[in-house]
């Protein structure tokens, strides 16, 4: 048992029971609120000293960039390299032309995952062309590939380092922790300051965002190599390099393949959002459509993103599974089908060569998808559907929206905004102390005080209100489905495809259905956040409950426990760490989405960041909002991380392993 739970036990021993302490805390908070209501509040100001200081800092940095040669040289070199990487990859994709890209993708898909994956690549890319979104799709793909290339090139070696060296682990893990709770939005500003806007910045931001996954999962894979195998190699006199090359890397191959897969998925999720810093690709189509509220057009672009996500996911996933089966049981089956497989592969290779030849002969024809072919669009039906919903279901959707807004969101928002700021900070600190220990409490208080210092308290409270509401809904729905899925294999099988699909989709896409139903508002952002965060919560709750050892369940059954008793007295208490982790993850994901909801009427911090990019004089506001998001995220994370962080991480890793094994 970890020190954390022992500490928890130690607290149990003190005179006050947790319940009494919570009640006392609650009562005191209410009393203080009633007494000091509307005092010590910090209303929002459009322009503050902090924002001006940030603006000045930016000007200074610009000045330094212009005038100090080493700095400008380094920054220009990085910028130039990424830009070169992006243009080269895009150049190859464009130069190949659509027939060759489709043929090559089909070939790769078939080689990695058989005819299903090949067919998926073929038809999926065909639809991209038919939607007349070929060019933006290739731009998105080019940014993604460029970023992933760098992520993997740096992330995999770093992952190996983290697995091998405790010192590297001690340095890198906290950085990864912070990066992980940073909302996607918060990544932009520092890179914009350093590298400006445009494709190069988009690649850099995407790379930074996706690299932690490469590091973490690689480290997980290397550490997962059985100690006995390493020991055997060492006993035969292997050097460290030999152990790595001949034992660890081969055995971790499948997991590293998975790391690449996850890196790609995260990168794609980020690429779409880089549109706010002028990143190229499908994001542009979506942002334009959002500006004119053409839901049908958003749908087309959203569909294209989903298709790309699915193709990239399946091809890389199958390829990483293949890495594994090649060394083991998969061989026999592969041998049986070898001849026809080779024939198909040969045929596809020939087709690819032919298509490349075609591009060489007729570059203009291969460069653009023919108009008569590129005529698929869902604009009209989707817009019709939206109109129909607005005409016929609005009494429902608007009713729900208004009811939740007036009944829940606004009151919470009002309480938070009318509370003295020190009371909110104190409550946050006290909750962190109760749930996660003293250290977490200190960090929480410092982070919240930082928001006060940034003079964005009021907007942060608005965002916090939405986060709280969305988290409550997410946990309610997620725990319910998770418990059902854990107790019934049928339910588990039924929800699995949805969970899998949800994991592959870029966050941006989730705004869409919410927007269709509820049009821009705070509530819309909350709905999007719920849709976004429920799947991982379901997964964690289910995994946590299913990981409860069979002996314990059996002991309960043998004692004559009912199913409800099993759940209440054994499964839920034993799965407590997993439930805490689910809460923690749920909050962080909700925060990320709520600020993204700044694009669809979510307002507050998210909108501040958007304005920061839109107008130069709002840069300071945007930067402060970005930092506030991170601080809010850190505070929420520390409050909800619970005692025994290590155990939670172990569980996370176990859950990840379960997932790795569950994808045959």
């Amino acid at each position, binding site marked *: 048992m970890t020190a954390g739970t022992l500490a928890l036990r130690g607290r149990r021993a003190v005179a006050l029971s947790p319940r009494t302490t919570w009640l006392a805390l609650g009562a005191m908070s209410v009393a203080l609120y009633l007494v000091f209501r509307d005092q010590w509040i910090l209303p929002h100001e459009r322009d503050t000293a902090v924002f001006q200081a940030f603006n000045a800092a930016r000007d200074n940095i610009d000045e330094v960039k212009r005038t100090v040669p080493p700095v400008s040289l380094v920054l220009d070199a990085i910028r130039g390299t990424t830009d070169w990487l992006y243009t080269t990859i895009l150049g190859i994709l464009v130069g190949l032309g659509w027939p060759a890209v489709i043929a090559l993708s089909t070939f790769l898909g078939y080689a990695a995952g058989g005819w299903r994956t090949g067919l998926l690549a073929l038809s999926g890319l065909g639809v991209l062309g038919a939607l007349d979104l070929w060019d933006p799709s290739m731009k998105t793909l080019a940014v993604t590939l460029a970023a992933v290339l760098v992520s993997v090139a740096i992330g995999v070696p770093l992952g190996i380092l983290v697995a091998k060296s405790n010192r590297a682990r001690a340095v890198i893990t906290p950085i990864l922790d912070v990066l992980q709770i940073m909302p996607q939005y918060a990544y932009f500003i520092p890179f914009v300051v350093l590298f400006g806007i445009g494709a190069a910045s988009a690649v850099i931001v995407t790379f930074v965002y996706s690299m932690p996954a490469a590091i973490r999962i690689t480290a997980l894979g290397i550490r997962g190599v059985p100690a006995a195998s390493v020991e055997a190699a060492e006993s035969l006199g292997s050097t460290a390099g030999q152990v790595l090359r001949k034992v660890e890397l081969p055995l971790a191959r499948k997991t590293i393949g998975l790391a690449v897969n996850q890196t790609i998925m995260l990168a794609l999720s980020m690429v779409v959002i880089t549109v706010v810093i002028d990143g190229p690709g499908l994001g542009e189509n979506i942002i334009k459509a959002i500006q004119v509220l053409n839901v049908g057009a958003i749908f087309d672009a959203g569909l294209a993103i989903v298709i790309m996500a699915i193709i990239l996911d399946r091809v890389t996933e199958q390829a990483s599974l293949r890495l594994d089966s090649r060394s083991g049981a998969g061989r026999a089956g592969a041998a049986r089908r070898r001849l026809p497989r080779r024939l198909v592969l040969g045929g596809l290779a020939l087709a690819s060569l032919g298509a490349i030849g075609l591009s060489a002969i007729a570059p203009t024809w291969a460069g653009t998808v023919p108009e008569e072919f590129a005529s698929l669009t869902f604009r009209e039906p989707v817009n019709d559907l939206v109109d129909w919903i607005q005409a016929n279901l609005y009494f429902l959707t608007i009713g729900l929206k208004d009811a939740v807004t007036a009944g829940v969101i606004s009151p919470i928002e009002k309480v938070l905004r009318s509370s003295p700021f020190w009371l909110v900070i104190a409550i946050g600190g006290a909750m962190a102390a109760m749930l996660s220990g003293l250290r977490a409490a200190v960090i929480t208080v410092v982070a919240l005080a930082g928001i006060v210092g940034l003079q964005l308290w009021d907007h942060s409270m608005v965002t916090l209100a939405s986060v709280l509401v969305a988290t409550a809904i997410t946990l309610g729905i997620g725990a319910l489905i998770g418990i059902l899925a854990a107790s019934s294999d049928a339910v588990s099988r039924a929800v699995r495809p949805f969970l899998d699909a949800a994991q592959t989709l870029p966050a941006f896409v989730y705004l869409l259905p919410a927007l269709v139903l509820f049009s821009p508002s705070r509530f819309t952002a909350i709905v999007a956040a719920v849709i976004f965060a429920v799947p991982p919560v379901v997964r964690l709750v289910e995994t946590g409950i299913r990981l409860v050892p069979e002996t314990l369940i059996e002991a309960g059954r043998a004692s*004559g426990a009912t199913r409800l008793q099993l759940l209440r007295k054994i499964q839920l208490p034993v799965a407590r760490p997993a439930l805490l982790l689910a809460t923690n993850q749920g909050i962080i994901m909700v925060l990320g989405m709520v600020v993204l909801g700044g694009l669809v009427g979510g307002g507050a911090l998210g909108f501040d960041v958007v304005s920061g990019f839109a107008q130069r004089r709002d840069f300071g506001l945007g930067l402060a909002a970005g930092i506030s998001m991170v601080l809010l995220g850190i505070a929420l994370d520390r409050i909800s991380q619970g005692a025994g962080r290590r155990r939670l991480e172990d569980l996370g890793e176990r859950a990840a392993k379960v997932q790795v094994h569950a994808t045959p």
Partner: protein
Amino acid sequence: MQTAQVDRAATTTHDDRTADRATGQPTISVRGLWKIFGPAEPKIAGSPLLELTNAEFRLRTGSTIAVRDVSFDVSPGEVFVVMGLSGSGKSTLVRCLTRLIEPTLGQVLLDGEDIRAADEQRLRELRRRRFAMVFQHFGLLPHRRVIDNIAFGLEIRGEPKASRLARADKMLSLVGLEGYGGQYPDQLSGGMQQRVGLARALAGDPEVMLFDEPFSALDPLIRREMQNEVLRLHHEVGKTMIFITHDLAEALKLGDHVVIMRNGQVVQAGSPQELVAHPADDYVADFVRDVPKSHVLTLRWIMRDAREDDPADGPEFGPDTVIRTVIHAAATSDKPIRVVEAGRLLGVVDRAHILEAIAGHLEPGQVEPGRVEEPGPTPAT
């Protein structure tokens, strides 16, 4: 005259309860029990497929026969051991008794009540009050204190807090863990954890206790200590116990009756002495080969009929005395040992018989209780 007053486990074997079984009703009666895992299970009743060997059956149906046509009776108050190697079906069998695993075919009777006919509520009632189980990996709840773990079964059946804690406290001292009630399971050693498991099972005052390889996760010294603990508890509380093990020595030490299983079938059933003296086949013979016969068999198994010229003043022992314990008497007296029950002379054991038994020279079929062949030239007295 020597009377050996030693604890029951070490010397005297458990009395043969054949008589009990004939007259009284068995506590548990298993008749023609089958368990099949796999797609073939639902429609297998009466099928000729059941005649197939396990391997053929798996090939033909894709299903596995885990328990095959098992029948036995467990008498009230006895320790009934099911012994077999891993994969022999013993753990499945014991779970079928309380339907933790649903049997495929056959009957399980508890005091004449058909357990397979019980509805869910009745079954729960049986599990709450009549059965209790001790698990190989203890199955203790890590988030509860020891005392709450012991009280768990009582809590499940809805007993008020004060009374269940009082009862749990009593159990705590019964298993020798006074003062540990406030600890958490992971603060205890393996042996102590299993004592908690024992106490939890005892707390509900069940009629039948089921042990699923309870000590195989413990190291040998602790295992022996726990075996003695079970014997002591059995002596004190007199529960009917069904004990699963893969350890022959454990089976022989604890069991009044032992059933040996292999591939889901019962290979042999009998008292420990019967198994050691008369292995039913090579498989069992292989098992018992290394068992010191003199530690298991009693005088009854090696004595010969008394003759006129036997000295009447040799040391006397009861017929159920384990051979090992008379070695000293035989070594210090030059007269043959007289086997006496209720003042009646049943037979005589020569020193040579004892030496032969120690040497393990008792091939299957050589000995029968009360009828021993002449062990060669009798030493002159």
